[in-house]
């Protein structure tokens, strides 16, 4: 295959939202929204996705930047991961997000990859990315969930024909911080809680978020509820740089003395959506932060997990990450 080549597409670079919506409507399913392109170009180069028109959102100024609001912080969807990792507003109040953003991919990719693209990115299942006609691609089989299927990186929860996982480092953080996603189409704006933004194969096997083709994620709002809390982020990957999480963990904890007053904790890499660990939250809320609570939390973390052939390791991995989040945060 020739390399560094993409099939032809029309490139449209709108400078405002109305223009963008108009183009999205005109091309319908043939349009592809482009942010940093760090997920998109891979699809195009492999010729698996062949959009008719690529709509570059980078020229729309209102989609960029980090703003303080009376309710907390609003991050434009087109803000790069590097900007988020370095922002004073974010490192000051929501260092959890800065930490996760700084662990995504590599410096070069963080300089162009956006937070919107990071949460909207597609599944990284290698069969699917290679263009195989699996369930997620509209076919009628799953190549990962067979006796020989290579499913080391796949899910331990929520399998429903597809066993792919949420690959994002920032998504569980947004769930932990109780963020909301601002979504617009030409007619209206709707706000969706981060937790409900991501959808599993039981809801729609061909999409990972609630976004409809004509919709644009415009911003992410983080309420001040968890600002300045005790945070814990850790990512375990085969390689430290440019590697997706096998499992990552994001926790926001409100301490009162040595007591865990309240907590939100979520992880990626175990389910098709970022998984909020409500059982862990219930177990530790009101307890003192010590080894015993951490052990209890760990033993409840992977309850109900159903591993595939090659990913049993994700159970102790998840348990240990939860133990550390409680003990070492």
């Amino acid at each position: 295959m020739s390399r560094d080549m993409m099939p032809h597409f029309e490139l449209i670079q709108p400078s405002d939202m109305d223009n963008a919506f108009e183009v999205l409507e005109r091309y319908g399913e043939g349009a592809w929204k482009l942010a940093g392109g760090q997920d998109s170009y891979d699809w195009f180069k492999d010729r698996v996705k062949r959009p008719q028109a690529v709509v570059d959102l980078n020229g729309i100024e209102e989609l960029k930047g980090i703003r303080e609001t009376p309710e907390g912080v609003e991050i434009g969807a087109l803000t790069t991961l590097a900007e988020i990792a370095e922002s004073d507003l974010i490192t000051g109040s929501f260092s959890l997000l800065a930490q996760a953003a700084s662990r995504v991919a590599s410096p070069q990719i963080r300089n162009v990859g956006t937070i919107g693209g990071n949460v909207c990115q597609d599944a990284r299942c290698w069969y699917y990315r290679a263009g195989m006609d699996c369930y997620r691609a509209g076919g009628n089989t799953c190549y990962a969930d067979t006796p020989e299927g290579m499913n080391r990186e796949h899910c331990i929860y929520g399998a429903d024909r597809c066993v792919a996982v949420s690959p994002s480092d920032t998504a569980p953080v947004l769930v932990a911080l109780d963020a909301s996603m601002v979504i617009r189409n030409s007619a209206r704006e709707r706000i969706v809680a981060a937790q409900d933004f991501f959808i599993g194969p039981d809801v729609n096997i061909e999409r990972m978020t609630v976004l409809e083709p004509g919709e644009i994620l415009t911003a992410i709002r983080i309420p001040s509820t968890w600002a300045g809390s005790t945070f814990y982020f850790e990512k375990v990957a085969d390689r430290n740089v440019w590697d997706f999480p096998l499992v990552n963990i994001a926790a926001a904890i409100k301490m009162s003395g040595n007591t865990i007053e309240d907590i939100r904790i979520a992880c990626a890499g175990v389910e098709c959506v970022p998984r909020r660990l409500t059982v862990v939250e219930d177990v530790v809320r009101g307890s003192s932060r010590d080894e015993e609570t951490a052990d209890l939390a760990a033993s409840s973390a992977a309850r109900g997990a159903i591993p595939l052939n090659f990913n049993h390791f994700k159970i102790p991995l998840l348990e240990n990450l939860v133990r550390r989040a409680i003990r070492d945060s």
Partner: protein
Amino acid sequence: MLVELTVNGEWKSADCPPETTLLKFLREHLMLTGAKLGCDVGDCGTCTVIVDGESYNSCLMLAARAAGRDVTTIEGLADSQGVHPIQEAFEELGSLQCGFCGPGMIMSAKNLLDKNPTASRHEIKDALSGNLCRCTGYTKIIEAIEGAGRVMSSDKYPQSNTF
């Protein structure tokens, strides 16, 4: 489409299909073959160039997105008068073996040292974390960048350096 941009201080333009990457644009339209095509997917960093003061993998950027901007490639670091302190240090220490990773490594290093010439070893490793070398083991690359940083932060180094 016509893409116009500044490359190594010179205004350039060329006609290319909209799906052309910046890497392809540089190599095949402007005949600047310093930036290399390695992995094609953002893993190796051998295609690294600097656009408006930030490093990017040019294999994962459309040429159209660099339009009107200021691009620096490895070709912009040396002229008939001499080479950049990073290149000098690489040469002195024998930092490279096959050399394929060199253009990307040096651009990532330049991007770091331009902002922070006194970067620590840890900061250097971080800045190079998106650049792979399959030959050397990185030790001499890192030592060279430390050395170049010392040159670039000394009083004698012209602050108005055009490189």
